[in-house]
């Protein structure tokens, strides 16, 4: 009778599960696509139904057409390249600084307390308020953007790292201590992996903040890049062109996020947030 159950129920359900497993990730991407299409559809309808005048908010299709046109222009890709360079450099500087400082401050109660008020004071200072200073120091070159990007992204990562460092499991940490792991070794083998999920969220937040700031800096200061192009389009009254560039910005954001997710999957496969996706 048990053999019966195996013969009838077993293989069928096994293959059923297998098929689901194989199709899992394309389904996920399709769903994501559906979400985007839903959003674009809504956008298309708002001006088409006259909720907002088409001249002020062109329908999605028109903007996408403009974007496709942009794709054919080298100038567009140069701008993208400039923005991405500023983004990448700014992000890397911010992450490196924040991780270093975060681990140093986070692993000492004294430093944590002593820096708290200063950190909280500096954090809410808007990058835009630093524009005169940035221009004064660096002119309207990429360094100005870098300074603003780094400043904004730095805090995102720092705070996440501080929280992550505070989250270590005492049993794990004690184990490491009794096995004679010194401060540096514990940071490397215990604190860092514990803080990693927090850090990844921080980097993900910072990656977008850096992008936003890269664009904003170009927009307000005028250093070359997509933001500058947006400003040009805006001041030239090229509404569809402007939204096409905004769309491009958003797409870069989506791209960056997928990249981050990929890195996260590789580095955090042991973590229960990622684990729960893989198993069962």
């Amino acid at each position: 009778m048990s053999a019966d159950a195996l013969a009838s129920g077993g293989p069928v359900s096994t293959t059923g599960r297998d098929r689901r497993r194989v199709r899992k990730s394309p389904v996920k991407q399709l769903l994501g696509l559906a979400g985007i299409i839903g959003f674009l559809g809504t956008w298309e309808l708002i001006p088409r139904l006259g909720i907002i005048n088409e001249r002020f908010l062109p329908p999605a299709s028109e903007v996408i057409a403009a974007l496709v046109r942009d794709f054919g222009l080298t100038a567009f890709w140069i701008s993208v390249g400039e923005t991405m360079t500023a983004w990448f450099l700014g992000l890397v500087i911010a992450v490196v600084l924040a991780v270093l400082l975060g681990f140093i401050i986070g692993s000492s109660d004294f430093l944590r307390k002593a820096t708290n008020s200063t950190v909280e004071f500096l954090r809410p200072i808007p990058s835009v308020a630093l524009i005169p200073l940035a221009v004064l120091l660096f002119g309207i070159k990429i360094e100005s953007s870098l300074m603003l990007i780094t400043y904004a992204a730095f805090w995102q990562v720092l705070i996440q790292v501080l929280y992550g460092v505070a989250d270590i499991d005492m049993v794990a940490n004690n184990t490491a201590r009794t096995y004679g792991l010194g401060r540096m070794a514990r940071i490397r083998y215990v604190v860092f992996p514990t803080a990693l999920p927090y850090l990844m969220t921080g980097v993900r937040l910072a990656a977008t903040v850096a992008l936003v700031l890269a664009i904003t800096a170009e927009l307000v200061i005028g250093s070359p890049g997509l933001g500058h192009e947006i400003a040009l389009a805006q001041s030239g009254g090229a509404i569809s062109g402007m939204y096409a560039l905004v769309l491009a910005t958003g797409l870069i954001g989506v791209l960056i996020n997928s990249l981050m997710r990929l890195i996260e999957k590789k580095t955090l496969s042991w973590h229960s947030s990622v684990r729960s996706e893989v198993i069962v």
Partner: protein
Amino acid sequence: MKILKTLGFVLALPVLLVLLWWASTLGAVNFFVPTPAALFAKFGEVWFGPRFVTDVLPSLGRLLVGVVAAIIIGVVGGVLIGSVKWLRALLEPTLEFFRAIPPPVLVPVLILLMGITDSMKVAVIISGCVWPVLLNTIEGVRAVDGVLSDSAHTYGINGWARVRYLVLPSASPQIMAGVRQSLSLGLILMVISEMFASSSGLGFTIVQFQRSFAIPEMWSGIVVLGLLGVAMSFIFQWAERNILRWYHGQKEVENAA
């Protein structure tokens, strides 16, 4: 004694930095970097007057509404998105899309949709503050301990009870990390929201000072922002201590000695 010690921790580094700043402005005079004295002189003059009522308070009101709304949206959305896998798959790319759009570009669209109103400014604040809370909540919800989650399941703790008793508390350390990020982002966005289509407000005033080269005044505004940040953060840390008492207790078990 304990209060003195806390005060020492709060003030030591800032005092040190101000001294450093003072020392560095002794020799060279830079138009864009005022001396501490000039700044403090302007500080009282600029902010302790009618401006406090006409500019600072309304801005703070919008900030508060924006941040609270962002937290609510972030937590509710995060719990939903974090626990429903297909929803996450459906929405993630779109959310990432919106996240990448700089608020200054978003403002004109929001003006179109909502007009030049306070709610538009609140919307700008929400549009930026919601992300840290949302992302952290999603991550926190995804990271609920497997054994704990199983326990809840077997005791029939599902739906709302599960959220209330398992998911929210378990994700709360991470949610708090997000909220803390949001608070300072909120201040930044408050300034950004007042950079456009505005005629009053704390952020507007600072930008106005900047444009009219009233440099010490501008820096004094930045100091106001910083102080607000510190105040908000201290209130927040106090609240967090209470909400996460179990968590800190657990973490500090060994410090109890």
